[in-house]
């Protein structure tokens, strides 16, 4: 009782290997298996961002005279516009949170070890691109907060030697944040970043299929497996459904707000701060000299990407306590700086 489509395809191409591969594909089951769901959830949320982003682009207009107005039009006039924008807004926050959980869980399971080094590097680059999405998307509603936060963001790299001024200029498209900046951020957000991110995500997911899920060293005596199709895929789908339900709840109960359009001639308001995922940078920039903060964050990101090549013990299948502690230290630093920034802002 083969389906007609399946028969049509089968008469033309040999689907045997694909079917064999699907039948054989299995996911290891052990104490930490739940963490495997976060990668799939991230993939799902990316699809949500792409769909809602494309919908917003049908009405959004990236010019200073129309940007804020067009977002207000989406919120107040377009049917379900508030919902689409709220999902895009909350989806961005959820996506970054889920990707962070995914990254730290694979880190502590040492899933980056041979042969999956390249997957780790790709994953780190994808997180960088997601932060790029968030940064470029933030300016688009053209509000006072988004204007001055972007201004601080694009001017900060100027302290870097040699490339600092160039970097800042090409982000602004001029000597100040204005129409050219809005156009550049929009182009980056809707053309450049999606193309780059999609390429890296496809590679990352393809490799995950070639290698299959890794098993943490501490669980290497496991013997249980779950068939991917249909058992695991159904569980994945259940997680997506729950994720979507939570996302829709947030989007309807706490819809994204739109504050007033910026007037660049008005003094910057007190308390200009970035979104939560940039707070650790914001706090580091406040506590240390700017050059030192930017330099060490850039260096830290490079070391983080290179971990699979630095951790020789895990590569040989041995326990590497040092890298577990290194990951913990980083996690503690990020969390405490974020909390600290949040508290110190409330006091001010």
């Amino acid at each position, binding site marked *: 009782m083969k389906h007609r489509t399946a028969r049509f395809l089968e008469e033309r191409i040999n689907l045997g290997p694909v079917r064999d591969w699907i039948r054989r594909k299995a996911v290891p089951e052990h104490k930490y298996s739940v963490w495997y769901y976060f990668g799939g959830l991230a993939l799902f949320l990316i699809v949500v961002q792409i769909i809602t982003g494309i919908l917003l682009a049908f009405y959004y207009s990236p010019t200073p005279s129309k940007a804020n107005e067009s977002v207000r039009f989406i919120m107040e006039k377009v049917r379900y516009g508030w919902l689409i924008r709220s999902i895009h807004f909350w989806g961005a926050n959820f996506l970054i949170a889920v990707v962070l959980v995914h990254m730290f869980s694979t880190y502590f399971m040492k899933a980056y070890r041979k042969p999956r080094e390249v997957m780790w590097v790709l994953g780190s680059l994808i997180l960088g691109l997601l932060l790029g999405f968030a940064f470029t998307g933030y300016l688009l509603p053209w509000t006072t907060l988004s204007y*001055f936060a972007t*201004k*601080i963001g694009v*001017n*900060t790299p*100027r302290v870097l030697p040699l490339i600092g001024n*160039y970097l800042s*200029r*090409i982000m*602004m*498209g*001029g*000597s*100040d*944040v*204005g129409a*050219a900046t809005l156009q550049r951020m929009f182009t980056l957000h809707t053309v450049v970043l999606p193309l780059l991110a999609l390429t890296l995500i496809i590679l990352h997911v393809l490799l995950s299929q070639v290698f299959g899920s890794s098993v943490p060293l501490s669980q290497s005596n496991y013997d249980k497996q779950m068939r991917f199709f249909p058992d695991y895929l159904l569980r994945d789908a259940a997680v997506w459904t729950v994720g979507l339900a939570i996302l829709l709840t947030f989007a309807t109960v706490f819809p994204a707000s739109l504050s007033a359009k910026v007037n*660049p*001639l*008005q*003094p*910057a*308001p*007190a*308390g*200009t701060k970035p979104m939560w995922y940039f707070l650790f940078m914001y706090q580091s920039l*406040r506590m240390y000299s*700017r050059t030192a903060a930017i330099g060490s964050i850039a260096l830290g990101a490079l070391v983080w990407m290179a971990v699979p090549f630095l951790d020789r013990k895990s590569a040989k299948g041995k326990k590497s306590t040092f890298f577990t502690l290194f990951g913990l230290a980083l996690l503690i630093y990020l969390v405490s700086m974020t909390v600290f920034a949040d508290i110190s802002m409330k006091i001010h």
Partner: protein
Amino acid sequence: MASTRRQFLNRILGGGITAIMAYIIYPVLKFLDPPSISSGERSKAFVATTEEMSLNSAKFFRLLDRAAVLVRLPNGNYKSLSAKCTDLGCTVSFRPAGDYFHCNCHGSEFSINGRVLRGPAARPLEEYDVSVVGDKIYVSAPVKSV
């Protein structure tokens, strides 16, 4: 011998590809760098009338596509400065009580003459010329590339 010949050819090929990449990337990097508009924009702007400006008040306006401020001092004189903080570019606010400018972004402070009173800003605010013709106040800045 064969392998050195192969190495030689590989090196030429590699060098050639690198050169071609540079050929492509260089103009792209230059393209992205916005040309500096040596502004044909008027450097002189009508800002306010004398009635508008009470003692110890400030008016923000645009000059050379940047935020600027006109202040009427307690002694009746006028003063005009760039309102763009020299730290990271936020628009500063005028503190009439203390006769100074405060930047809300990182707390820099500038005197009424634009001098830095408190960091992180390191450079002073640029000062502009004010001229009063009848009851109209004009501010002018030297034209330079923006």
